[in-house]
């Protein structure tokens, strides 16, 4: 659930420099320093996130908010957010409320597909799990087309891999990462693996050509992932060191696809 409020606040609050809210965010993970996303949200919606935060800060006894709840900062717009169905016209579009931003998803996909292009460090600030979920499902679907029902293995290995990479990245980098960011990057870089399993439907991968293709795809995935991680976390001289554990993880996926 705490991911939920971070998610919400990441998506909507990036452009606004409301001082109270930025102080309040300083205790919630590392994403708050890197706000640079240019999401479009209508200007009337800023106070709604504060509706979620003050009560919890009262409970956690960190007085960033000095009783903002009881001040009449609520506009009619915010009430409609809380679901009282008042202003149907003022509700945001469904995709924006869900946090799915197709433009960003497409940009991130293009970054993954071109591992040689240097990545922008700020694109991974919003922990967007929609794209990764789509790619995992696509991987499972293409494996299904090849006759292997391995959904459980895909989910299990991605969960364990995310935990392990999160631990390693927190130890190796100076700024930490959140689970969501790691899961998002690893999920996006799974896209070339979907291509590999798609080609496994057409021809069998168990020869020399298949092994070479699998090695190439694993290298592509891990180079992309390490490129995004090193640019987002500002780690110099460690790209190959991050690429190696990513290659181990994607190698497991490749084993699943090939055998």
């Amino acid at each position: 659930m705490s991911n939920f409020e971070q998610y919400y606040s990441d998506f909507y609050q990036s452009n606004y420099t409301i001082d109270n809210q930025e102080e309040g965010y300083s205790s919630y993970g590392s994403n708050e320093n890197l706000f640079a996303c240019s999401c479009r949200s209508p200007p009337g919606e800023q106070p709604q996130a504060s509706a979620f935060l003050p009560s919890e800060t009262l409970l956690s006894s960190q007085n960033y908010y000095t009783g903002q709840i009881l001040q009449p900062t609520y506009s009619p717009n915010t009430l409609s957010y809380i679901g009282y169905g008042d202003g149907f016209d003022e509700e945001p579009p469904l995709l924006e409320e869900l946090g799915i931003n197709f433009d960003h998803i497409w940009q991130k996909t293009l970054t993954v597909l071109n591992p040689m292009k240097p990545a922008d460090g700020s694109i991974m600030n919003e922990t967007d799990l929609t794209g990764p979920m789509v790619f995992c499902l696509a991987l499972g679907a293409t494996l299904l087309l090849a006759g292997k029902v391995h959904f459980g293995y895909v989910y299990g290995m991605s969960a364990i891999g995310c935990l392990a990479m999160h631990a390693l990245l927190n130890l190796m980098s100076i700024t930490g990462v959140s689970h969501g960011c790691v899961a998002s990057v690893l999920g996006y870089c799974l896209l070339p693996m979907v291509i590999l399993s798609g080609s496994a439907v057409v021809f069998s991968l168990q020869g020399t050509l298949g092994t070479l293709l699998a090695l190439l795809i694993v290298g592509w995935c891990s180079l992309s992932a390490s490129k995004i991680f090193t640019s987002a976390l500002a780690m110099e001289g460690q790209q190959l060191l991050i690429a190696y554990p990513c290659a181990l993880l994607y190698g497991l996926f490749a084993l699943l696809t090939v055998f």
Partner: protein
Amino acid sequence: PAASFLAEPVSSLAAAYGSSLASQGRDIVDRNIDRLVPVGRLKYYFAVDTVYVGKKLGLLVFPFMHQDWQVRYQQDAPVAPRFDVNAPDLYIPVMAFITYILVAGLALGTQNRFSPDSLGLQASSALAWLIVEVLAVLLSLYLVTVSTDLTTVDLVAFSGYKYVGMIIGLVSGLLFGKTGYYAVLGWCCFSIFVFMIRTLRLKLLSEAAAEGVLVRGARNQLRMYLTVAIAAAQPLLMYWLTWHLLR
């Protein structure tokens, strides 16, 4: 007024309370993790970069040309591994351990002896031997009453370096058969032996003895035997943990 506050955004209050519980839980976990696992100390061992890893791997396989084995210090604290190739790190041992498990699975798979259970068995037995070795070294350091600045994490790092040799031996065994395996493993065993002797000599022996001057005395002899014993345990374990994978 408090009443109107409670009456209106009830659902948002519930959502906020739920999320506050979760973040409180996470705070508790973070605080307690710091007591069990000293994350700050561990970060030192992972402050590596690609150049360091390359040089260290080269040292592990060919330690004969390297002259200066002393760890450099900076105001009483050892310099990060990034800046000194002699400092121990944990990145190589952890990666080598995981790669060893994967290569063991690969070796079993090519001999059609693979099952996920056997992979778990390999992993847990390797981990158990690592723990036993570290405990044995700690016990013997305590018995010999050597005053050294070797921490437990340093010992784990040194014990983890032999996995690099094991992986190279296993891969050559898979590619070139038994002769390749024995030849490469023999070479890696010998180089790990020399590496451990040269590294531990500076940490365990007294200053004069470390520089090569023969210092007579029962204590120094005991420490010398201890260093040789620790170094000799490495090749034995390397052989023990790999020979059953290439039968």
